[in-house]
């Protein structure tokens, strides 16, 4: 049977290490995407139920910073999904291609897994003044 690990999952015992690794990767990818040209914001890409469970768990144990990129490992395949808000002043297809390149590069680095990437722009807007 193929096992599946997802960043943000609650596991016990032997799975903890694998999930923690995916959590770290999700956090790293989230930070990386914030620096991609044309990305206004990184949005939560995880399925609603997963996000809700994680939020509740964070509420219980205090929770630290968590990644917004959904990372799932199934066998030898690493599936990475990101949702972003993109800058209205730049072509969204090009921005998303840059995002995909960053995800592929960082997620594939040293993992030995096949990386499948999905990127969605869910908002197109001007950048907020920071």
């Amino acid at each position, binding site marked *: 049977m193929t096992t599946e690990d997802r960043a943000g999952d609650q596991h016990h015992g032997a799975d903890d290490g694998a999930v923690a690794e995916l959590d770290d990767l999700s956090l790293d990818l989230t930070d990386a995407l914030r620096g991609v040209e044309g990305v206004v914001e990184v*949005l939560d890409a995880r399925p609603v139920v997963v996000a*809700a469970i994680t939020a509740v768990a964070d509420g219980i144990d205090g929770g630290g910073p968590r990644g917004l990129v959904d990372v799932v490992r199934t066998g030898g395949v690493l599936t990475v999904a990101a*949702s972003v808000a993109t800058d*209205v002043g730049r072509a*969204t*297809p090009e921005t998303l291609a840059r995002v995909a390149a960053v995800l592929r590069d960082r997620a594939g680095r040293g993992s030995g897994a096949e990386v*499948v990437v999905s990127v969605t*722009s869910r908002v197109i807007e001007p950048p907020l003044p920071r």
Partner: protein
Amino acid sequence: MSDHDDDARVPDAPRVPGVPLQPADQDELVDGRTLDELEDYLDRGRTPRDPGIEASAECRLTLRALERVRGLSLSVLEDEASRLPSRDDTWIAGLIDSIKAEVVGGRDIPLRHPDPGVRLGVTEAAVRGLLRQVGDAVDGVVVRSSELEGDVTEAGAPIEVTLTMTARYGVPLREAAGTLRAAAVSALALHTELRIAAVHVVVDDVWLDGGGAS
């Protein structure tokens, strides 16, 4: 509505985006947040930053829409109220309802990528939000709603766009509609790969600005 009201409606519930609440509440929430909560956040200049709101596409689209509603000239609303007292709430309520319907993600619109291991897309809600922004940039025009007709999930399928707008009294309607249409086509070409077969512009109302006569 205050935070107290929110708490009364959702007792003991943690504020978790997407968590199902009572059926009566679900229609009033945007990714777990009330419109009043989002308005308060906007009042505070989106500070201190709320990661729960900022990480939600629905909330961000709603914040943009609320900014836009606030940006409408007060005189427009005053005119609506004085001219048609029974309609003022309806006008705003209709706009808010339209905004709430549009922040839901909707269909995924694919974008091409040469790598078969990469899938890119834009949500229908993002495109609708884009079309609203386009309308904002046209002087004297408010886009009330937008529709994408056709199979947007299939690359190359012909899509017809319908924009329903209102205009300030005195604005040449043909010219305004033409400007809006051109801006919409340009924005869609920049941000999507949709094959736009037609853009229909419907003018369904005219408002007075600064007390002018209709």
